């Protein structure tokens, strides 16, 4: 299980970097310490040769920066709906990118992304948790393999 989690971490990290750099122009640095003060989360589940879910945890500042950089909106022009939409699109792209890096010969089915306040920031053997910092704030990524 520990080896699987390490493989997930190694595969997921470049996916997160690629999505945030290409779509949101945000450059992330891995954090060595765990951070728990997030304001929102977007999640998606996947099913195929392996199943599980991916959750992205975001600070409000980070979500605003994502909207600003992706859509060119600023200040009062950024709505809660924009932040939800961008966060859901981010988790969708991160999960799709991760799965194609994991095995591009296999087909995985992805659920529709969901958005809510952060739930339990659980930990355990089947959980891979990563936190990242940037000029715009922090993000956390949790991958759960079933």
């Amino acid at each position, binding site marked *: 299980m520990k080896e699987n989690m390490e493989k997930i971490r190694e595969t997921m990290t470049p996916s997160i970097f690629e999505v945030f750099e290409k779509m949101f122009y945000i450059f992330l640095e891995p954090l060595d310490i765990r951070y728990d003060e997030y304001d929102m989360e977007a999640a998606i589940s996947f099913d195929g040769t392996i199943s599980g879910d991916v959750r992205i945890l975001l600070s409000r500042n980070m979500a605003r920066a994502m909207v600003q950089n992706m859509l060119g909106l600023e200040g009062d022009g950024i709505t809660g709906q924009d932040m939800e939409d961008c966060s859901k699109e981010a988790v969708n792209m991160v999960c799709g990118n991760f799965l194609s890096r994991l095995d591009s010969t296999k087909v995985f089915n992805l659920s*529709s992304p969901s958005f809510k306040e952060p739930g339990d920031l659980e930990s355990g053997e089947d959980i891979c948790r990563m936190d990242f910092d940037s000029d715009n704030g922090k993000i956390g990524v949790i991958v759960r393999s079933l």
Partner: protein
Amino acid sequence: MSFNLLIVDDSRSMRAVIKKTISMSGFKMDQCVEARNGREALDVLAKAWVDVIISDINMPEMNGLELLEELKKDSLLKEIPTIVISTEGSEKRIQDAYDLGARGFIKKPFLPEEIKKVLYEVIGVSDEGEYGEDKGDDDTFDF
């Protein structure tokens, strides 16, 4: 010559970013209509002619592959070049899209240059807007 585009994606943000990317690329776009899924796309196509369709795969109600199947059944609609733009990275899903008639595939996340390149390839227009005459390979953008 300018072109009418149909962007099909359930994410409002993604539709907006695709539209923005295309207009900034210098592509001569006349009208750009949007749909949230394949069903809405077919409704749009029943009322208006478009020159290119850009469609996501994973959408509620009718997904992008089902939309391609419907287009393939119609003698007129099947002639509209369709580009699939998706987080789907599996070789099988990409091949499925091509088998159903897609002319191009762009994987999300994408760079603006990738959309521009595929769009010009599919529609058969060069950067200069001349059919079949590519007058350079400068894919850069002036943001």
